[in-house]
C-alpha cells in the first residue's frame, strides 16, 4: 500500500507533465516579476515573486495565491533529480544526463544566491578612507561612543530590533534604549505653532512633527526610517530623542563622562580593511555626454594581511576581495564621489561549473546524435 503510494508519487515527481507545468509556472512568475519591477523595484519584485514560496497577493491574476519562485525552483530541482536518476545510465543518454546535472547545479547556485547573497555598497569621496559597506535599504540606530577623539566605539541596533519596540540593552555600555515609537517610513516637518507637542523632549526632535508614511521599495526611493528612543543609564533617563535618517546632524548626550551620539543611518558592516579613493575618472566620448568609461583608483589597506596596494576598478573589471566583489556602480558630487556596489555570494562559482557541465553535455549529445544519424545513413546505403 505504502509502496503503491510511494511509486505513484515517484511517478509524478519524475513525470514530464510536472516538468512542463513547472516550466510554465516559472514562465508566468518571470513575467509577473518583470512587470512588477516597474512598481516595486527590482529587489522588491524579486523578493516577492522569486525568493518566496507562495505569492499570496499577486495583482495580475485575480489576486489568487500563486506558487512562488522558491517553491517552483525546489520542485523543478526535485523533478530534475528524479528525472536524472531515472534516465538509464547508458552512453546514449550521457549527454542529456550531463546537461540536466548542470541544470541542477545552476538551480543550486541561484538558490544559494537567493538565500545568502548580500548586496551592499561602498560610497567614497576622493581622498576619503572608508572601512565599511552599507546596506541599500536596511537601517540601524548607531550609538557611538565618541569620547576618545581618535577612536569611535560603535554599537548598533538593527531596524528589525527597533521595530519590536520595548527596551533594548546596548551590550558593552551601561545604556538601555527604550524604543517608544518606531516608524519604518515617515515624513518630518517643522512643528507648526499650536500643533500637539512632539513625543521628543530632548535634541532637535522637540521641534519636529512626524507623520507615518507607507513603506517604499522601488530602487530609487528610500524609507525615511525614524524612531523615538529614550536612553536610560544608571537608572537615569536622558530624555526622549527623535532619531531619523532625515535628520542630518548627530545628537549626543553624556553619561558618566562618556559622550554618546545617536544616529539613524543605513546599516553598516565594518571591514577588517579600508579603501582610500585616490582618483575617480568619468570619461565621455569627445563632444558628447555619452559616458565612455568610469573608473576608481583605490588604495586597499589590509593590516591583517600586511597589504597595501592600488587597484583600478572600472567597467567590466570589478575587484574580488575577501569574498566580496566590488564593482563600479555610480558616481556623484561632480565626479568626486564614487559608489562601488558590493556583492557577497558564496555560491558565485556554481554557475560557471554548471555552464561547463551543460556545454560538455550538449556537445556529447550532439556528437551521439550525429553518429547515430550517420550510421543510419550508412545502413540505408548498405541495406
Amino acid at each position, binding site marked *: 500500500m505504502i509502496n503503491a503510494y510511494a511509486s505513484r508519487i515517484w511517478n509524478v515527481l519524475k513525470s*514530464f*507533465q510536472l*516538468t*512542463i507545468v513547472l*516550466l*510554465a509556472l*516559472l*514562465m508566468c512568475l*518571470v*513575467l509577473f*516579476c*518583470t*512587470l512588477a*519591477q*516597474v512598481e516595486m523595484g*527590482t529587489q522588491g*519584485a*524579486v523578493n516577492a515573486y*522569486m525568493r518566496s514560496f507562495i505569492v499570496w497577493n499577486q495583482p495580475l491574476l485575480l489576486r489568487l495565491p500563486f506558487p512562488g519562485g522558491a517553491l517552483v525552483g525546489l520542485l523543478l530541482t526535485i523533478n530534475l533529480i528524479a528525472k536524472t536518476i531515472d534516465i538509464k545510465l547508458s552512453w546514449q543518454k550521457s549527454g542529456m544526463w550531463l546537461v540536466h546535472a548542470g541544470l541542477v547545479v*545552476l538551480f543550486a*547556485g*541561484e538558490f544559494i*544566491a537567493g538565500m545568502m*547573497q548580500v*548586496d551592499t555598497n561602498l560610497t567614497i569621496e576622493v581622498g576619503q578612507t572608508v572601512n565599511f559597506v552599507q546596506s541599500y535599504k536596511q537601517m540601524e540606530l548607531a550609538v557611538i561612543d565618541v569620547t576618545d577623539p581618535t577612536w569611535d566605539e560603535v554599537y548598533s541596533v538593527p531596524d528589525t530590533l527597533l521595530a519590536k519596540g520595548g527596551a533594548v540593552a546596548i551590550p558593552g555600555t551601561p545604556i538601555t534604549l527604550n524604543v517608544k515609537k518606531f516608524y519604518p517610513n515617515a515624513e518630518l516637518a517643522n512643528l507648526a505653532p499650536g500643533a500637539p507637542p512632539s513625543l521628543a523632549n530632548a535634541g532637535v526632535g522637540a521641534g519636529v512633527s512626524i507623520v507615518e508614511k507607507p513603506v517604499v521599495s522601488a*530602487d530609487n526611493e528610500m524609507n525615511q526610517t525614524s524612531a523615538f528612543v529614550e536612553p536610560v543609564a544608571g537608572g537615569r533617563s536622558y530624555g526622549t530623542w527623535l532619531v531619523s535618517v532625515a535628520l542630518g546632524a548627530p545628537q549626543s548626550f553624556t553619561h558618566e563622562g562618556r559622550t554618546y551620539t545617536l544616529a539613524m543611518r543605513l546599516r553598516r558592516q565594518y571591514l577588517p580593511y579600508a579603501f582610500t579613493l585616490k582618483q575617480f575618472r568619468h570619461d*565621455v*566620448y*569627445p*563632444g*558628447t555626454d*555619452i*559616458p*565612455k*568609461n*568610469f573608473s576608481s583608483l583605490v588604495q586597499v589597506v589590509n593590516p591583517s594581511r600586511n597589504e597595501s596596494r592600488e587597484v583600478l576598478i572600472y*567597467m*567590466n*573589471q*570589478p575587484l574580488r576581495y575577501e569574498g566580496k*566583489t*566590488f*564593482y563600479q*556602480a555610480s558616481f556623484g558630487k561632480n565626479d568626486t564621489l564614487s559608489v562601488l*556596489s*558590493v*556583492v557577497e*555570494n558564496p555560491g*558565485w562559482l556554481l*554557475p*560557471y561549473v*554548471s*555552464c561547463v557541465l*551543460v*556545454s560538455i553535455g*550538449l556537445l556529447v549529445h550532439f556528437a551521439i546524435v550525429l553518429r547515430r544519424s550517420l550510421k543510419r545513413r550508412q545502413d540505408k546505403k548498405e541495406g
Partner: protein
Amino acid sequence: MAFVQKYLAWGAGVLALLVALIVALPGGKARGFDVSGFGTLPILEGGRVKPLDSLARNSLLAIHSRQGFRHDGRMVGPDEWILDVLFRPQVADQQPIFVIDDPEVISLIGAKQTKNRNYFSFADLSSHLDEVQKQAASAQPISAQKRTRFQSAIVNLFDRVYLYYKLRNTLQLAGSPGLGWELQSLGTPEAALRHQDLTQLAHFRMLPPTTAANPDAWQSVGQALTAANAGGSVHPALVPLAKLNAAYVANDAASFNAALAEMNGVVTTLKPDALGHASNELIFNRAQPFFVGLSIYFVAFLALCISWIYKPEILRPTAYALLFSGAIVHTIGLAARIILQGRPPVTNLYSSAVFVGWGAVILGLIVERMYRKGFGTAVAAAAGFASLIVAQNLGTEGDTMEMMRAVLDSNFWLATHVVTITIGYAGTFLAGSIAIAYALKKHIAPKVDVETDKALADMAYGIICFALFFSFVGTVLGGIWADQSWGRFWGWDPKENGALLIVLWNAIILHARMAGYVRERGTMVMAIFGNIITALSWFGVNMLGVGLHSYGFMDKAFVALTTFCISQAVLMAICYAPARFWVDPSQRKA
C-alpha cells in the same frame, strides 16, 4: 531544359547583385557641384568621426523620415540638402521637409491637415516657433511614457526643429554674410558674441585637430573663430571652408570643386586616416545594403509565391537564387558595418534586427538546401524582409553606429553573449515562421500532403533545438558577463528575464514533444507562440524602462508590438483549426 532553367534562375540572382552594385555607384553632380565630395568630409558628431553624409542622412531621416525629398520637380539628396542648410539657409528654409502627422500640432501651427502626410518648411513653422517651444517646454518634464499623444508629438517636433536650427547655425550664423566675412571681421566688437553663439549652437565639429598631442580635439567653427579672435592662428581648414561657402552661395560650381580639393588636402594633412574612413562610410551609406537586401528578399518571396501556382520548375530555383543574392548583399552590409565600426555585429536594437534577419536567412538557406520544398526560401525571404523592415524603422532614431555606453564597451562580450543570444532570437523566429507557413499551407493547399507536412515539422523541430541551444548558451554567457561586471550572475533584470522566457518556452516545446503531449500541429502552434515570446523579450523589455539593460525607450513601437502579438495569436488559432473548417461543405461531398 533543366540546364536552361538553372541558368535562368542564377541569371536572376546575378541581375539582383548588379542592381545592388549600381545603387552603390556614385551619382552625378548636383547642378555641377561635387556634393558627394562635400558629403565625404569627415566631422566629429555623437562622439565619433563620420562623413558629413552620415549626419545629413540621419538628420534628414529624423526630420523628414526619408533620406531625400522632391522639391521643385527634382530629387534633393542628403548631401545637397545639408549644403543648403549649412550655406544657403534661405533656400533650405523654403523646402517642405518637416513631416507632421498629429492633427493637434498641425492646428497649433495654424495650418489645416490636407493630406495623409503633411510637410512643412522651416519658413512655414518660423512664425509659430515660440508657441512650439512653449508647449514643448511644458511637456518635456513629463517622462516619455506618461506623455499624451499631443505632448509626444510637440516634443518630437521641437527636437527636430531644434536640430535643424542648430545645423543652419553650425558653420555660419544663418542670415550673416558667411564665413569669409567672419574671417575678415575678426577683432571687431560684435565678433566675439557671434562666435559664442556659433560655438553654442554648433551641432558638429568640422575642423580636424591641429595637434597630434590631442587627437580627439576636433573644433567647431565657433571654437576656431573664438581662438583666432583671441589672437591665435587661424585654423588651416577655415580658409577653404570659407571658399566653399562663398562659391556655393555664388552658385560657382568650378570654384566650389576647387575649394573642395583644397579642403581635402588640409584634412588629409591634419588627420591622414579620417578622409579615407569617411569615404568608405559614404559608400556604405550610398549603397544602402539593407534596403537593397530587403527589396531583393521581397522579390524572392513574390517569385516563390507565384511558383506555387505558375511554372514552379523555373520560379522556385529563381526565388532561391534571388534569396541567395539578397543574403550576399545582406552579408556584405553586415561585414561593412563591423569593419566601419570596429565592433561585433550587434551593438544596439537596430543592429540586432539586422542580425536576426541575417541569421534567419542563412538558416533558411541551409534548410532549403536540405529539404528543397521551397518553404525554406519562402520563410527565409519573409523573415529577412520583415526583420530588415523593422531595422529600417528602428534606424530613423539617429546614428545607427552610435558609440557604446561605458558598461557595454566590451568587444569580447558583445561578440559572444550578444551574438549568441541574437542567433537564438533568429532561430525562434524562423521556427515560428515555418509554423506559420505550415498553418497557411494546411488550409490553402488543395490536397493533403503528409510528406511536406512532416518535412516542415522536422525543420521546425530542428530549428527549435538549435534556438534552445543558442538562447541557453547566450543567456548563460550573459550571466557570466553580469557576474564579471556587476558581481552577480543573475539579477532578474527584465532583459535577462526576457532571454530566460525564450529558453523556458523552447524547453517546454521540446519536453512536450518528447513526452508525446503534442504532435505535429501542437508543436507548430507552440512554435508560433514562440514568436510572441521573442518579440516581447526583444522589444517589450525596452518599453518597460526599468533595469540595468534598458538604454533606450520607444513609444511608437508599442502599437506595432501589440499588433504583432495579436496577429500571431490569430495565426495560432488558424494553425489549430482543423483544415476542413475552411473547406466549403458542398465541395466536401463531391
